[in-house]
């Protein structure tokens, strides 16, 4: 089984977006990924089947629009290597996307890495030794919130590779290039858990 972990969420298909971008679909070929952490708002069954095809091991938490699946948990924790990775959709964290509230949630879950969604905006930062990642929306679905003029949600997801206590995060974003076409850009962020402290 592959050791790559895919964190993806906020599809909103078909309400707000028609489908996962074709370029993302192409990248997410079966067999490459070991586990999928779905951050909620999967909303439709076809997308679920697609993800199942990408990797059979799929962990889902409930988003605010997953009305058809009331039994999903609000948050989950998985352990990979020396890291505890917690993930939640984040609509129950108030104020939404607030770093202090997220820190409280991370402590509550006792995890080293917290993934959250709901804002449709990619974010990654370290706070008090913990790592916070928001993979954004896989479809770039529109969202309420404070968006600057001519700013639109960028379709994105993240791929994680755990090496011991280090986490390498690959960020995939579909950004418009100079030629007007949209291109997938990949960035890499590395987080290393501080094991020397308390």
């Amino acid at each position, binding site marked *: 089984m*592959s050791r790559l972990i895919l964190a993806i969420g906020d599809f909103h298909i078909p309400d707000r977006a028609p489908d996962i971008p074709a370029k993302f679909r192409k990248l*997410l*070929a079966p067999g490459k990924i070991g586990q999928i952490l779905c951050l909620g708002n999967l909303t439709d069954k076809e997308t679920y089947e697609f993800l199942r095809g990408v990797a059979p091991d799929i962990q889902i938490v409930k988003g605010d629009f997953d009305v058809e699946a009331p039994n999903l948990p609000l948050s989950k924790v998985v352990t990979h290597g020396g890291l505890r990775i917690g993930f939640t959709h984040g609509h129950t964290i108030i104020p939404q996307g607030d770093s202090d509230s997220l820190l409280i949630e991370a402590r509550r879950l006792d995890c080293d890495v917290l993934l959250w969604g709901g804002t449709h905006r990619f974010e990654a930062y370290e706070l008090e030794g913990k790592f916070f990642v928001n993979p954004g929306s896989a479809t770039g679905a529109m969202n309420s919130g404070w968006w600057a003029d001519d700013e639109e949600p960028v379709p994105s997801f993240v*791929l994680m590779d755990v090496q011991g206590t280090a986490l390498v995060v*690959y960020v995939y974003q579909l950004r418009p290039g100079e030629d007007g076409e949209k291109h997938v850009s990949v960035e890499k962020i590395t987080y290393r858990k501080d094991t020397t402290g308390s």
Partner: protein
Amino acid sequence: MLSLNDARLRWNQIFDNFSSASSLKQAISEQLGAEDPCVAGLRSVCWKLFILYPSYTPQLWVPELRVHRSTYEALCTEHLTLIRGGTLGAPDIDPLAEDEGNPWEQYRLDVELRAEIMQDVERCMPDIEFFRQPTIQTKLCDLLMVYCKSADGKSLGYRQGLHELAAVLLWVVWNDAVEVKPPEEEKLETLDEKEDLMEVVLDGRFVENDTWALFCAVMKHAKEWYDAGPEGQSGCAPIVAKSKYIHEALLMATDPELAMHLKALDVLPQVFLIRWIRLLFSREFPFEDLLKVWDALFAEDTDLHLVDLVCVAMLLRIRWQLLEADYSTALTLVLRYPSPLDTPPATFVEDAIYLRDNLSSEGGNVIIQKYSKRTPSVASSNSRPTPPSRRRFAGRSTQQRTLSPSKSWTPASGIESIVQDVAKNVLSQSQRWGVNRAVRGAVEVRRSLAPSPGPPIPHPKNISSEEQELVKQNAKLIKRIAADEERQRTLARILELGMQAVENGNHAEGTRRLSHVKECLLDLTKVVNRSLLQQHVPVSLPGSPSPPLLSSPPIGTDDQGISATRTPNNAASGRPVIKKVAISPPGSFVKASFKNNSDPDFLSRTERPRTTLAQSSFAWMLGDDPAEKIKSSFVPKDKQGKRTGEAAKGKDGSMKANDIEDDVVDLGELGKMKGPL
């Protein structure tokens, strides 16, 4: 793992008692029992000596040992880092990119490979506790993986079976290893004392490395056994050619009778030899015995060429059982090789060495006699082309025989082989055309017709017309049989003339005739060349009894006659002929009825409640086209027959369906028997 003291004792056992590698080999071939240097001493050291380091003095090969170990270490870092969760060499690579050189793609393949290897490793030698330990399984998996990915095994990849070879080696190396305290670097550099040398050689930290080195050395020669041959042509694999060679050259040379028998049974050599050879007999013998076999094998011949002859020796040991066996018994014998009770399996290697020096039927006889106290009679195998046990399977071998020229078998005796061929062919024809089945079918129809007047018969008209039809066809067939008998007689005469010509020294003439007869028998539509009858050689009068050669298998002549005119197109001629019972020779009729008795359908028929004619087993006669149906069920081998049979099954009652199903099942079994070959 051994304690340090025990290891030292054993180490000295080897290096004090034996002054050279040859004396060590000598000791192993003598099979000293408890004194055996592999038992009392260190087996892993012996194997290393034989396979890896031909120079006897450890001082000389320790540097080489170090090289091996560091090579393995390097290969491990090269090939296993990724899978062990380490960082990638080039970190700034998109894991999802579908480039050729993407290390993530490589990683994905590695993961698959490892899963495949692990699956085999986990169920390897299930009865040995040692291989159930996760650490051992990881070691085995790692070293197999390194082998498959390194230059040695890259072309091969992983093949099932490799794990068993590696497992045995690992077991041996592990058992002889000693726990060594991590020594200071300097001490390693300045080694002269024997004791320290021993610690280095048997260092428990390098079990995996040493096993890998041994494995690579063994695989150097074993690799071709696993080679699948050119893509898509599984028949061309070297192992298949090797099996053929063992059977047709080695076994043929040592024990022609057994080789012919196996050939007649159609037990293809690769069916069992692939496993014997690929796993180096590790499935054939108990583990302890296996180690001894390997001892002897490695001591004698590191190139493993001896393996071929070991296979021959194993076949010779079960010769008498094989000669009495039919197809399935023979297969069971060779696939579950009976472990010899009184003699250790290492004697097979001994025999093989003997055979290597005496590769002849005399050599084979010596081996056979040695273990069974019986000598095979060489002459008998030639005079009797098909002993009874073979007859049953003659039908299956014909196809192959016609395809592959018999000359390749016994190139020495040309005429003899032709004569043998002719006789065999005659026998097998009857099987191939299913004459017996037709006869049996006819008998059954008669039988079931006889008691039917009891209950009311719904369609008496049909029955009588059916019978008339039968009688008509009867007459036709009898005519045909007469014609065939005539043809047969002509052939017999040509054969006789040929024999006479040969006796008179006119070989060219004789061979021409004999091969003509052969061709006529093989090809039933071929017109007999009557010009061959008119020769200056004295001709026997027409109508005289057939020559002795053909009369010896009388069964065949008749059956041959029936089938002679029948080509696949007019297969319908195998129609029910009640009279044929008389024509059919006693032998085959007995067999047919025997088969009949074993037929569950037949047995249960008597107990069945009487049913109406429409439901009876011959209800198919009442169908739309009765003649067509008869045809189909009496010649079940005919595809067309099968189809109509199945179609009819749908229409008519369940009884009839049963009957036809039986035929189909029969066919299926035939197919199955041929299947794995």
